[in-house]
């Protein structure tokens, strides 16, 4: 039986990035991160992304805007990629047109976040 909590947790937060656009994050063994997305962040959220913030304690990955607004990816970072994301200094953002061609690229810093308890 599926519990109510499961359904509630399984739903992506409406404010999450995954709920707003197609987005995949690839991580390699050199602690390089590629963020592939199909919509311009400014068009969707009305502001540009300033940096990524990774919270090692929870595995949350947050997209922080230039105005300080923080939006979660929408899923925790999988265990196997966590050590590399923790080491990463920057992420390459690639806007992909029609899921086929790179339309734009940006480099953003990756910072470690501290969880509020």
């Amino acid at each position: 039986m599926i519990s109510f909590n499961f359904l509630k947790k399984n739903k992506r937060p409406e404010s999450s990035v995954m709920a707003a656009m197609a987005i995949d994050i690839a991580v390699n063994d050199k602690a390089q991160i590629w963020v592939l997305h199909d919509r311009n962040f400014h068009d969707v959220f009305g502001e540009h992304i300033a940096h990524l913030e990774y919270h090692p304690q929870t595995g949350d990955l947050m997209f922080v805007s230039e105005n300080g607004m923080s939006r979660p990816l929408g899923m925790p970072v999988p265990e196997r990629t966590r050590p590399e994301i923790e080491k990463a200094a920057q992420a390459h953002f690639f806007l992909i047109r029609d899921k086929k061609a790179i339309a734009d690229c940006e480099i953003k810093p990756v910072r470690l976040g501290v969880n509020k308890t």
Partner: protein
Amino acid sequence: MAAITTDETAKEEDGYLGSISGFLSRKWGDITGKIWDGVGNALGPTLDSVGNYIDTKIKGLLDFIFGFVKSNFIGMFGTGDFRNFMDEICDNMHAGLVNAFVGAADAQRIDEENAAPKSAVVAPAEPAYGPR
């Protein structure tokens, strides 16, 4: 297995470079135009901003291209919409393949299983995503 002759090696390299070239023009046609548009737009303010703009974009592209060739992907996660895109890049660039993809549903399942009592935990099998 027959030994590869010099001619065959050359042909193979030509094919490889050809596929890279075709791949780059398919994947990076848009961004190349964008860079030059950006140069045009940046010409207004200062020469420094032009340099910074080019540096950032070019560095991003070079890191992207050579990063793929030299690296091994250890994982990919998200909505899963770009799995084919990554597949094609890996196929064309002879790069390390992404050997696992985890989507939101998988992450949820893993979380649920990790939260379960130890005796009930079954090691989550990550869906294979790599060499075909």
